[in-house]
């Protein structure tokens, strides 16, 4: 492949940034391992990865949406709705497969709903999903009368807690999904089209790309991924909880943006997002180990969101400056 230093401006910026993210991740790990003796243990690291893997599965869906220039903040509410739906089916039938199908179906329905409101209704996706976030959370509350539904099939817990070759099952699932979607984004037509639409949707439309269709597809795909993370969450909670996933949307979005995925679409990588999620996961884990009150976690999370968006804005400004400089020559 031909390479020029200038031509790879954006790539080099992301590479440079990803190097910075790796360094940040290592630094945070070192700090926590000094502060807490239980941080650098196999048990804790497995635990962190298990926790992060839920964010990663949902995060992939969020990356796809953000690359398109869209967003879905109903992901947190969906964690509850999917948990309730799958645990209800599980308890009624005793079948984990049917419970999984119920979970995925719920994800498809919610993705379709969001996608149709955005593409057919022309509603801004932040507002549209702000609405569905409340609706889905509300439905969960109504259906359960705000009472958690316990799981009555003991094998179900194995999904979240189980291990394969010493590796937690959720970690294996999320790793497989990361590899699969890395391939989709970088080597398939669908991936190319997502970047193009997010970069300039009008140009994409005029170049003959089925913009609305792809947006709808990605909303549904993201819904399915959100449902999968919710399914595993339900297994870990061993219940369908109507309050599950509160604040999850902010966690996912902050981590992904921290990882260099632009809010305005068309720019970002899955590997960067993965680093962002690991950083946020490690910080949360470290705070727990240091016995910091969970109220402080919210403060840290808020600060991370602002930092992430600030970095995104700065990135955009630098890119614009660079373009201006090159066109002025």
């Amino acid at each position, binding site marked *: 492949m031909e390479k*020029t230093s200038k031509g790879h401006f954006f790539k080099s910026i992301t590479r440079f940034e990803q190097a910075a993210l790796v360094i940040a991740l290592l630094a945070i790990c070192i700090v926590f391992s000094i502060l807490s003796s239980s941080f650098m243990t196999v048990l804790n690291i497995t635990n962190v990865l298990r926790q992060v893997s839920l964010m990663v599965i949902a995060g992939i869906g969020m990356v796809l949406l953000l690359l398109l220039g869209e967003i879905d903040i109903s992901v947190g509410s969906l964690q509850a709705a999917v948990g309730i739906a799958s645990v209800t089916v599980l308890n009624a039938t005793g079948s984990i497969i049917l419970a999984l199908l119920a979970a995925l179906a719920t994800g498809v329905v919610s993705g379709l709903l969001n996608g149709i409101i955005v593409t057919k209704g022309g509603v801004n996706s932040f507002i549209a999903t702000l609405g569905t976030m409340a609706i889905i959370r509300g439905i969960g509350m109504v259906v359960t009368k705000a009472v958690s539904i316990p799981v009555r099939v003991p094998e179900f817990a194995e999904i979240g807690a189980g291990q394969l070759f010493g590796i937690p099952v959720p970690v294996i699932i999320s790793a497989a999904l990361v590899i699969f979607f890395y391939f989709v984004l970088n080597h398939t037509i669908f991936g*190319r089209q997502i970047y193009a639409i997010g*970069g300039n949707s009008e140009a994409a439309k005029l170049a003959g790309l089925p913009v609305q269709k792809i947006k709808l597809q990605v909303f549904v795909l993201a819904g399915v991924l959100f449902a999968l993370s919710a399914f595993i969450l339900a297994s870990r909670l061993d219940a369908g909880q109507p309050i599950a996933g509160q604040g999850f949307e902010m966690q996912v979005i902050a981590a992904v943006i921290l990882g260099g995925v632009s809010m305005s679409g068309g720019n970002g990588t899955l590997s960067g997002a993965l680093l962002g999620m690991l950083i946020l996961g490690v910080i949360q884990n470290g705070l727990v180990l240091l016995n910091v009150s969970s109220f402080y976690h919210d403060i840290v999370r808020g600060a991370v969101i602002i930092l992430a968006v600030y970095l995104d804005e700065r990135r955009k400004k630098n890119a614009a400056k660079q373009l201006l400089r*090159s066109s002025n020559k």
Partner: protein
Amino acid sequence: MEGEFLLEVKGVHKHFPGVHALNGVNFQLRRGEVHALVGENGAGKSTLIKIISGVHNIDNGEYLIEGKPANIRTPHEAIEKGISVIYQELTLIPHMSIAENIFFSHLPNTRGKVNWKEVYEKTRELMSYVGLDENPRTKVGYLPVAKQQLVEIIKALSANAKIIIMDEPTSALSNNEIENLCRIIKELKSKGIGIIYISHKLDEILELSDRITVLRDGQYIDTVETADVTQDKLVSMMVGRELKDMYPRQACEPGEVVLEVKGLTTEKVYDVSFNVRAGEIVGFSGLMGAGRTELARAIIGADKRISGQVIVNGKAVPADATDKALEMGIGYVPEDRKNHGIFAQCCIRKNMTISALKQFKNTVKINRSNETLSVNKMVEDLHIKTPSIEQLISKLSGGNQQKVILARFLMMNGIKVLIIDEPTRGIDVGAKAEIYNILDQLTHQGLAVVMISSEMPEILSMCDRIYVMKKGRVTAEFKRGEATQEKLLSKAI
């Protein structure tokens, strides 16, 4: 006559990292003279203007104003010395009134209290001078571009400008508005104001200017009296070689009807019918806002149709799906390249293949080596100047970007109709001729081309048939050879 120049630049050099942007450039401006500055993109015109207006400082050479060293270090000092620049992209503040925009840097006041009466009176006086009939309190954002430009000129006059620099002033104007601008320029001349005029439109320069200075690749080529040159001579000075024929069109025997539009109606287009045969170039002439772009958008299904049909090779093109139109072989090269054409954050390769990705698919994966091969071939065939196909498209010149967008559709196997909207807007002369050549060759391979253009010479020389549009309707059809500038204009207004 020979005495003092209003402005003189002698042997000026300017370096940027890696670029020798100006290499010994000379330029003089007399009182009451329109002095045009021409050259291809990257020739150094903008750099010279930026030096004159204080944005950049010179590395080497002399810059004199009325025979004395200019000592201009900042844009503000340039304005104080009577130099005003009217940029291509206007710099007015949209939510401020005409009067405020004109006077905001020097509001007439008594001890800090603004004399609004005086402001509005002066504004009215200046407005009548340039023929602008508006309320001075009107917010500038509500004015059309042509009127905003007049406000810019008034602003320059109110700052007592002795030298006015106009950078592509007519690129967004209709013919009427251009005429008014020409009239104003003549008045400014008679007041002894010197005007530096930059434009890609050579016919306009030949009509308006007294002298012309040609730059090429940062070098000073020559300064000539306008009366002594022809357009061909000017072009060859700009590109450094003889352009035998700017317009290579050799009409070929038209084939079957490929594109047929019947009674197409949208919110902006009324009952338009026409057809295009294989091997034909059909032009759409008219003023800006005549509905030509909207017609193109309706054909490919990007805008809603109210009624009417679009047929390609006997099959109806769906009304609301640009992907279906593309699949049926219609490509559209948009007018607004920057906002509607390119994917600025992507490289040349990804920009070029986005519409033809299916051709590079094996099972599920895009075959990178096939893709690279095809892109490299296109880069070679269309003479796209770039160090690498991985270069960001936004780093290319306008002409090369346009070639990439053209290639986007030319590399498609099933392409039958190409609609190209303002094919050479903002493109320098050399690349223009190349694009005409490409279009001509394509028709010989059986492509049907629809060319929307506001440039009369281009449409008259390249098209086999010409439709004229006005207010969303087709008002005339001409065969090649029948049409003249006057005829097209009379049907467009």
